[in-house]
């Protein structure tokens, strides 16, 4: 997996997590409606994003450490099988995490978001990106750099590189052979950025313009999509 693909995958998964009503934006909207102020919507976003990021970071750090100390297959197989099994379980038993409480502090929101992301396996879903990404640059440098670039579409990579800053830094880390846990942290940051942007956008648009009636029409059962995504990422991990 090239850096550009990894960046896009992380941002895309961030957007996918952000658009799920059960993962944050709906809670932010509810708090706004309760207080009758947009400020309450906005105030909820960062604590929710922080909880999400913490959940993701824990998973990616653990996988990152294991990746650096264990043979490749020893990590990929358990993670891949675990993901597939967890996804299949969620397809059959759509249990949801339990929580009661509308009167929440910022700390509550962070803890809530951490629990939701963890219970949904949000971090696990990013595992193949991390595992594949770590291999990507190394393989590229060693032998198949040009070939790989063609397949991946180097325009996208150039665009990300041109965007500079974080992207260049993380790629730099990868190419310098920085540890996988560090890459995991970079991945968490990028993923959370995509998550926060989409969650914030949806929350504000629903609060300001669309209204909650949309829930009745457009709240598709993401549980099934989510579970399917877990199974797919599990299989991807196994076949990396």
């Amino acid at each position: 997996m090239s850096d550009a693909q990894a960046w896009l995958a992380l941002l895309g998964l961030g957007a996918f997590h952000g658009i799920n009503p059960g993962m944050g934006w709906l809670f932010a909207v509810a708090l706004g409606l309760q207080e009758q102020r947009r400020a309450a919507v906005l105030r909820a976003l960062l604590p929710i994003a922080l909880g999400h990021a913490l959940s993701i970071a824990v998973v990616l750090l653990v996988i990152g450490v294991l990746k650096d100390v264990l043979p490749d297959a020893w990590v990929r197989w358990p993670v891949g099988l675990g993901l597939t099994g967890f996804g299949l379980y969620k397809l059959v038993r759509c249990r949801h995490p339990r929580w009661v409480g509308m009167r929440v502090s910022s700390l509550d929101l962070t803890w809530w978001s951490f629990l939701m992301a963890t219970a949904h396996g949000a971090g696990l879903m990013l595992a193949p990106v991390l595992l594949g990404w770590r291999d990507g640059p190394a393989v590229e440098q060693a032998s198949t750099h040009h070939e790989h670039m063609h397949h991946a579409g180097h325009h996208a990579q150039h665009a990300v590189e041109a965007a500079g800053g974080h992207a260049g830094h993380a790629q730099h880390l990868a190419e310098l052979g920085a540890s996988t846990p560090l890459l995991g942290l970079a991945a968490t940051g990028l993923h959370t950025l995509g998550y926060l942007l989409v969650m914030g956008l949806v929350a504000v648009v629903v609060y300001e313009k669309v209204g909650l009636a949309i829930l009745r029409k457009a709240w598709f059962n993401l549980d099934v999509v989510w579970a399917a995504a877990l199974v797919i990422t599990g299989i991807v991990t196994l076949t990396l």
Partner: protein
Amino acid sequence: MAARFRPDPTFYPSPTMAMQAPPEQLAYVVLLDPTGKQRPDAMAVVDLDPASKSFAQVVGQLDMPNIGDELHHFGWNACSACLCPYAPHPHVERRYLVVPGINSSRIYILDTQPDPKRPHIVRTIEPDEVFRKTGYASPHTTHCGPEGIYVSALGAPDGGGPGGIFMLDHETFDIRGRWEIDRGPQELHYDFWWHLGHDTLISSEWGTPSMVRNGLDAEALLAGKYGHALHIWDLRRRKHLERLELGAEQQMVLELRPAHNPTRPWGFVGVVVSLKDLSASIWLWFLENGKWQIKKVIEIPAEPADPALLPPLLKGFGAVPPLVTDINLSLDDKTLYVSCWGTGEFLQYDVSDPHNPKKTGSVHLGGIVRKAAHPSRPDLELGGGPQMVEISRDGRRVYFTNSLYAPWDAQFYPAGFDGWMVKLDIPEGGKGMTLDPNFFLQFEPGLRGHQIRLQGGDASSDSYCYP
């Protein structure tokens, strides 16, 4: 349980949105054999579609497999609370009815699909299991809530206290155990509901199973031993916070009707009888400056009567107590309905200002002395009185039945009575009411109706997380 791809169409984020729901087509009404010995209780399905040929008739009836359950209150497995933002699960179906027997402590789970007119039992939770897993008996009111299905219970298996709340899993209907973590001084129990926007649960007090099962215990009543307080709980931490005392003379604090708008921290509760003058009353609880308070906002006086016309229990008083046994609040939180089961009067109040209710309507039907007739059968004296009341989501139709609780029916209406159900039409704006002359349903002789649930939801089934 099959999950839907889109939310159940009967779930609405807010009570205001729920008021736009289409009119109900069917009602489910529990029927009980007041002798508890002759035949099983039943679930009746009543046609509410005015365009239908079978309007105001029972179009389906499911007999339970046991005798003597005394079905009483019941409720839906899922409701608009499934849309709550902190644990949303809106793709479950409002499909199953949770139907406890107050005498047997048995709980039936009824499936209303595929044919809503032919509900059938899909699971029975036997009394032993209720006793073993909860330590409670006499399950009563059910509410679907954010964590699952909450069921109230009057007391312990030995007939004493404490009464409380236990939980059922909303997918498997397995008993998950007691709800309370810290019950404080709470002992008596009856109804419960909540303010979801304030993480607050309210519970009320009737009496333990042994105080109610054999009829109203006059001695206990005169000693002020029935419930006379409300309890405020932390819904999130399942912890008792506060006891709101109404005064020992205020006996039996029953139905709780918190504002449907989750941001409004107030609600109404009915008191059956005052020992001072046999009056009944409605109280308002409210949060002011961070403190929960309660005050009487409506008092309904007893009506003097010829002792010769009164049952033995009341002869000495020479008056009929109103006996407010049920109340209900419209989804816009503006109209309150009050059942006076003793005097046979049904009252309507404008509660736009909850601190100052204004009476806007009254209808007489049944009553211990009055025995008022229905317009469609002016010749027929009616027994029982207005009791379990349910309001359509749009607030334009109100339905009620006439039985309270078999052992108590026998004390206040010793001659017995037949079970009936009526409908009232309410004008837009919710002020005033008229009995629908085409809706006078007499149940199968020997059976009496109790709680009514409307297909798709009503004014006491759903709770909401959004204002």
